[in-house]
Every structure is written in structure tokens, then in C-alpha cells.
């Protein structure tokens, strides 16, 4: 029988995601996963549609160029560009980690920040090129 006088430590039943403060490599890691999922759902079908229409005929090629003029399309392209760039540079970091390059804590934190900064800067350049 349960004794009400015994205080049972309340264990959390759910993770409070907003209370979790990830270290920088953890942020890069979860963004690698998120960007990968986004690219699977959106970029792969879009990329194939682009390849298809860009090679089909002169008309469909020019249609694509026209559609890229829409601000909404530009915004989607920018989001996908960031997904790709983050995934690309975070992925290179993982390949280097496999080769035991940059595995000590200060270096891995530095390179994680570098992944975020470099993909951020290149995304800005894409934005400049788009607008």
C-alpha cells in the first residue's frame, strides 16, 4: 500500500524541450537532421522538377526563370539553400571527425561555430544574388 507520508520525488514525464540548452556541436547536429529531413521532403522533388523543366524545352526553361522572380519562390529557395549549405558543411565536419581531425573539445566547438557562420554567410550571399 502506498504511504502518503513518503514523499516520492517527482520525475519529469516529458522532456521540456525549451529548457534544454544544447552545446554548439549539439545545435549543429540537430540542424543537420532537420535540414536533411527538409531536403528529403521538399528539395528532392523540387530539384527533379527543376531538372525536368529546365531540360524539356526552351519554353519550360524560360518559365522557370519567370517563376524564380516571385518573392515567395525566392523565399523557399533561400530556405532550401540554407538547408543545403548547413547540411553540406556540417557533413564535411563529420567526415573530418571520422578521420579524427578536430575531435578535442575546443576545436570541435570552434568548427561547429564555423559551420554555422560559414553556412549563414553563404546563405546571405544567395539572398543577395536572388534579390
Amino acid at each position, binding site marked *: 500500500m502506498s504511504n502518503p507520508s513518503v514523499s516520492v520525488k517527482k520525475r519529469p514525464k516529458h522532456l521540456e524541450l525549451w529548457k534544454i540548452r544544447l552545446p554548439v556541436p549539439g545545435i549543429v547536429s540537430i540542424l543537420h537532421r532537420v535540414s*536533411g529531413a527538409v531536403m528529403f521532403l521538399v528539395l*528532392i522533388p523540387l530539384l527533379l522538377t527543376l531538372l525536368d523543366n529546365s531540360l524539356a524545352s526552351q519554353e519550360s526553361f524560360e518559365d522557370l526563370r519567370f517563376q524564380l522572380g516571385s518573392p515567395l519562390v525566392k523565399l523557399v529557395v533561400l530556405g532550401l539553400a540554407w538547408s543545403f549549405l548547413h547540411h553540406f558543411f556540417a557533413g564535411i565536419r563529420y567526415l573530418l571527425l571520422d578521420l579524427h581531425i578536430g575531435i578535442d573539445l575546443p576545436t570541435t566547438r570552434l568548427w561547429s561555430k564555423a559551420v554555422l557562420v560559414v553556412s549563414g554567410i553563404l546563405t546571405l550571399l544567395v539572398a543577395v544574388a536572388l534579390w
Partner: protein
Amino acid sequence: MVNRVLVGAHYGLRDWLMQRVTAVVMLVVTLVFAAFFLTHPSLQFEDWQGFFSYQAVRVLTLLFFLSLFLHAWVGVRDILMDYIQPVGIRLTLQVAVIVALVSYALWTVSILWRV
């Protein structure tokens, strides 16, 4: 004492390696295409179609997309295994992902070798 050997499906190392090999293939082809786009700032249809008239470019593009689909399979399957616990739903989603990726592969071939 019983030496119990817990055996898994043995796909761990193979998938780990596949994820890296496909990543390197995509890295190389991405650099080739980046070089093409940077040297053709205002790309015209003739240049683009001309580029894909080379068999080597088609093969390289197909290699890229097949690597992409294998890479996506390993990645998405890992995500589903982590977050979708009911076996039935997970299996259904995994099958849906396979069907989508195989369809994409066929689509890619049909685009590149269009009659």
C-alpha cells in the same frame, strides 16, 4: 556464465560507410556543378542543354542522384527509427519512403535519357 551474443541486423557498419561514400560522391559532383554555374552567370537554355548532351555529364548526374537517394534512405530511416515508435506506422512510412525514392530514381533516368 553464459556468453550471450546479442546480434543485430548487421547493417550498422554498411550503412555508416554508405552514408560517407555517397556524401563524398555528392561533394565532388556538387563542386563540378558549382564550377559550371559560376562560369555561366547568365545561363541560357542552349548552354544548359549542351552541357547535358555529354554522356559523362548525364552519368555524373545520375551518380549524384543515386547517391542522394541512398543517402536520403539511410538518413530518413534513422529519423523514423528514432521518433516513430509504433511498428506498423514506422513500417508503413519506411515503405512509403522506399517507393518515393525508387520512383525518383526512375524519374531521374527518364529526364536524363529523354527520347
